[in-house]
């Protein structure tokens, strides 16, 4: 397998992404979006599309840039660093992976003409296999009824990938978001991003709308989830590094009791420990990208390992970030709170720590 260090191309991609985002999408943008009541900046997304980010996992024959999973992780990580909100994960990573694996066209994702949301959750915890939403037979097609929640990019996406239970088993559908009978309600979550609850009231679907095979929805979803787990883990690792960077800078500059607070050994040791956690988690992100690019169908362990580690590390990074900043870290005026809120939402999205740690445990022979 490729080495666990970035290639030259990867380093260039990261530098370019960081340069662009530092300039075009600092954390201030997230605050501005929130205060304006919008989940993301469409102009920013248009720029990302132009740079080929929307097509990072779309084949070149369809107009994609086809840079691969490790590259997608790098982009997600850099977005995490400054908490960039965009349809990147839902559309360019998750949906593109599902469509491509199923041999469906994905060029419209690369061109930015459509954006996707993934509708899987029905309860408070991620559990695709327990999906209950009905896809009842209706002539040659289906009628979908039920509700989905915690749908990322749910109000803004123009298309929805939705998992429902047909007679033959779980089935993944690809529908326009404005199909009759589908209503979308914004969820006002703490990360100020676009999340929705979706209600399906006898929504019509045909065989054309099925991704992969009828009854094989989990298989159709698997490539999408693997890519999504990895990229979300990458976002969280970028988030950790971003929060840590702000905190470390504060420790070096802030004075109390006549000293820079970064000179207090108790804080030094905690900062060093946090740095170790981030460093160890970073290895799992690199690895997930390598495994996905090499043997995507065998990446379950690698991506769950990454998501579990990244979740826990981000939690520590934002807790230490707020505490080490003291009172100022509690104010809305400072960025640290946004890191904490996004870390919490991303911790739950697409499976929490326990979900992914159980995948790892089973892979290691424990009956978790």
């Amino acid at each position, binding site marked *: 397998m490729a080495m666990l260090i970035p290639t030259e191309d990867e380093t260039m991609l990261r530098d370019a992404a960081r340069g662009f985002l530092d300039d075009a999408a600092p954390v201030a943008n997230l605050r501005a979006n929130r205060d304006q009541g919008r989940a993301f900046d469409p102009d920013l997304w248009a720029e990302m599309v132009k740079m080929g980010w929307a097509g990072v996992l779309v084949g070149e024959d369809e107009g994609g840039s086809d840079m691969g999973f490790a590259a997608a992780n790098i982009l997600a990580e850099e977005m995490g660093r400054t908490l960039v909100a965009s349809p990147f994960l839902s559309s360019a990573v998750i949906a593109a992976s599902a469509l491509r694996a199923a041999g469906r066209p994905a060029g419209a994702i690369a061109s930015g003409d459509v954006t996707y949301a993934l509708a899987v959750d029905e309860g408070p915890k991620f559990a695709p296999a327990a999906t209950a939403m009905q896809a009842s037979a209706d002539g040659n097609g289906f009628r979908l009824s039920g509700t989905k929640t915690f749908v990322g990019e749910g109000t803004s996406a123009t298309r929805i990938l939705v998992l429902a239970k047909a007679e033959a088993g779980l089935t993944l559908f690809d529908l326009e978001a404005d199909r009759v009978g589908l209503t979308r309600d914004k969820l006002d979550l703490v990360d100020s991003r676009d999340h929705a609850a979706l209600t399906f009231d006898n929504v019509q679907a045909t065989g054309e709308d099925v991704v992969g095979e009828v009854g094989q929805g989990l298989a159709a979803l698997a490539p999408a989830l693997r890519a999504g787990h990895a990229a979300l883990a990458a976002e969280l690792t970028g988030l950790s590094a971003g929060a840590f960077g702000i905190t470390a800078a504060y420790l070096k500059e802030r004075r*109390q009791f006549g000293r820079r607070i970064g000179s207090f050994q108790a804080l030094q040791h905690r900062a060093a420990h946090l740095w170790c956690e981030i460093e160890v988690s970073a290895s799992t992100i690199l690895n997930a990208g390598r495994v996905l690019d090499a043997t995507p169908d065998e990446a379950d362990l690698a991506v769950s390992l990454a998501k579990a580690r990244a979740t826990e590390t981000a939690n520590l990074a934002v807790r230490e970030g*707020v505490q080490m900043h*003291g009172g100022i870290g*509690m104010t*809305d005026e400072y960025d640290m709170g946004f890191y904490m809120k996004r870390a*919490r939402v991303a911790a739950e999205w697409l499976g929490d720590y326990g979900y992914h740690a159980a995948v790892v445990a089973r892979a290691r022979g424990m009956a978790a």
Partner: protein
Amino acid sequence: MPDMGQESLADFRAEIADWIDRTAPASLRDRAFSEDDICWGGKRWVFTSDDQKVWLEACAERGLTAPTWPEAYGGAGFSRAQDKIFKEEMDRLRVKKPLDSFGLWMLGPALLAFGTEEQKRHFLPQITRGEVRWCQGYSEPGAGSDLASVQTRAEDMGDHWLVNGSKIWTSYADKADWIFALVRTDRDAPKHRGISFMLIDMESEGVTTKPIRLISGKSPFCETFFDNVRVPKSYGEGLSAIVGEQNRGWDVAKHLLTHEREMIGGGGSGLTGGRSVASVLADEGQDDPVIMGRAMKLGVDELAMNLTLDRYKDMAKQGGVGNASAMLKYYGTELNKARFELLMSAGGSDALAWEGPYGTLAPEWLRTKANSIEGGTSEVMLDILAKRVLELPGD
């Protein structure tokens, strides 16, 4: 009142219970209890009901808003034993306390310990009657845990002080009538000297306040600015604007900080109230060993901490706990943060909304992050424990 034996304490209990039962308005004896039901007093207080006003006045009349303060200053002169009985009967009869305020918690104890007779007679009854609402001005922007690095200065202008600077984290400054603040009255003295504990009318020209928005949303905290504020050196005969000696305000502040930590141990931590971890876990199923393991540990630690709060209360009755109270602050707030982290994990996406199936759990969770910062950070508490309780070397 003089100390009493067991028998007269029983009489006392019967008598006070009877009085409460006869006097407390029925509408205030509801179990459902919200923060808004508490009267904080002050010139601008709008009573939420006539009963709230009646109950405040009845209690103030008998000194029961500050039961342990001397009668001469508007209190009831209760002994510790009597005070305990009074609180027990209030609880038993499900009656809300008539008044809560920083004046009662903080300024009162400071004046009782450091004030002149005139200051006590003038300021304390205004507090017990709920007429004047006080706020606290210690922290300053940029000072953080280092409370003694006071930059707000008071220049001696002969008959008055000229105050310039700003304070942060002044709870309810926008609703308070007066502020007790640390100001620097000697700029050449060492850091801990040269600070005075000053009483300032919030209506003075040049005082402005600005609310602070927290990561959890709106908050009672404000920034308070002093722009060429003229503070008279005296508010009347024996009524210096300064409590205690000039330039020795740090002693007053330190006394109050210790008192505050004991208060937190005294039931302010909210550890026993609020949402039950078990109920959230029951909602979500309990098949995740990681969450279950954390919940089991939290269950153990919470009960142990509650017992420790009880034990420290008992110890305090027997002569105080001193700096060890820093443990209650440190452990209690860290535990409360862990509790909310667990609640958020257990609640899953239902817990992520600003307002959702678990009500305002998410902003409450964010708010807990300040627990280990306000009133002395966890790091400061650990320093205190290491140096003053364990007596580890400072070199």
